[in-house]
């Protein structure tokens, strides 16, 4: 195949509106995966951070286990664990066949993964607050809850917003790992398209543009939000 023919084929793929629709649907799925996983991650992150900052040694240990286990293994393995190993274990234990929804378990796996990173982000946001703030709140006799709610967390929140946004952007890209288990998202859509056209690379490039647009839009919005947050300081 000469170069002219190759570009002709690319042009054929690029000029078919159906292909954009396919990729757009894939992109929407990627956003759904990333969004659910992100929110899940924040919830798990708050829980994880309160475990890791807890006075109770055992709870701290639990928090550490979660973070180290997840951050110490590739996300791909975690996805495969939830798709392949977990159902096998459940089948072994219950004796009944257990079939999972790839999309759901994949999203859960990514959410649990994100939770470990969010734990560290939130934890460092909280411990990054100047000791004087804790002491001032304490000397003003605020209860622990009021201190967290009105003094510490609002300040931690501001510090945590920028890394949380980049975590979301990371998740949009990481959601592509779901293609390994054949769950629909942007990369998988591009792979299907590649197989149909016997041209693997070009659809991937197109998907790349979609990823770029999504992440660019999100980081632009994030910059505006950050600026507004900074103004209130």
């Amino acid at each position, binding site marked *: 195949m000469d170069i002219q023919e190759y570009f002709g084929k690319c042009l054929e793929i690029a000029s078919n509106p159906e292909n954009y629709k396919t990729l757009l649907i894939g992109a929407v799925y990627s956003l759904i995966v990333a969004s659910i996983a992100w929110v899940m991650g924040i919830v798990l992150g708050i829980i994880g951070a309160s475990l890791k900052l807890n006075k109770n040694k055992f709870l701290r240990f639990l928090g550490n286990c979660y973070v180290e286990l997840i951050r110490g293994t590739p996300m791909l393995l975690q996805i495969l664990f939830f*798709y392949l190993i977990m*159902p*096998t274990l459940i089948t072994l234990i219950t004796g009944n066949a257990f*079939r*999972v929804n790839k999309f759901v378990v994949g999203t859960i796996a990514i959410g649990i993964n994100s939770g470990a990173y969010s734990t560290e982000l939130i934890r460092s946001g909280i411990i990054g607050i100047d000791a004087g703030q804790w002491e001032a709140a304490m000397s003003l006799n605020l209860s622990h809850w009021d201190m967290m709610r009105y003094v510490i967390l609002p300040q931690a929140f501001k510090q945590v917003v920028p890394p949380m946004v980049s975590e979301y952007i990371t998740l949009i890209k990481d959601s592509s790992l779901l293609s*390994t*288990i*054949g769950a629909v998202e942007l990369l998988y859509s591009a*792979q299907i398209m590649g197989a149909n056209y016997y041209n693997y690379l070009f659809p991937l490039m197109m998907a790349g543009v979609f990823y770029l647009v999504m992440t660019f839009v999100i980081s632009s919005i994030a910059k505006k939000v950050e600026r507004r947050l900074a103004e209130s300081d």
Partner: protein
Amino acid sequence: MKKILKIAAVAAMVLGCSACSQTQEEEISWQDQLIEENTLIVGISPDYPPYESLENGEMVGFDVDMMAELEKYLGVNVEFEQMTFSTIVDAVNLGQVDVGVSGFTYDPERQVLFSDPYLESAQVILTKKDSGIESAADLSGKVVGAQLGTTGADAAAEIEGASVELNQDANILVEALKAGQMDAVVVDLLVAQNYEESDSSLVVLDEPLVDEENGIICSTSNELLMDALNDAIAQFKESDAYEELKTKWGM
């Protein structure tokens, strides 16, 4: 000179002199039947990678390399004659070329002789022994995995009532099958057999979804040549070169 001999041989057969024809056959070897002395003229359509294609004007591909190997076993020179695919069968029958090589798959409708297959593959159904699935017909309403972009994916799509899940990686498909996430997986025969051997809970169904066998064709009147080709193919398949070429061309 050769032509005359050939005509004589045909004439002898036509005369129905069975006794003498037998002796004649002993004498007439396949080499004598070649169009050009000591040369095997091969009709080929170089537009079918990885079997054969043109690269910078040079013909490359599995078939091309294979003919270079067969040349050794046959002991005649191989000469390629490029033509469009659809004309190869006619060219063989009309005696313009001795054989046709172009990734031919067995097809009884083609009025030619087919050699033993030099490449065999099939898309088969791999399933769990206890699944109760015995044929493609049992897959209706079931989840069938197949590898993205393969003939297996096309074949799986043809299975009536089955919902097909595509994945890039055959390993993950088989693991998903083992983990009970799928009911069957359509894969290449060799791949399926390896899994069957490695895991006693898996079984390859006898009936393949698609047969893919490639052979060399020659004219129906050239059985002697076909015998010689089959011999050569058998030797080729025994040789190390066979596996090397399969790897080289990703067969």
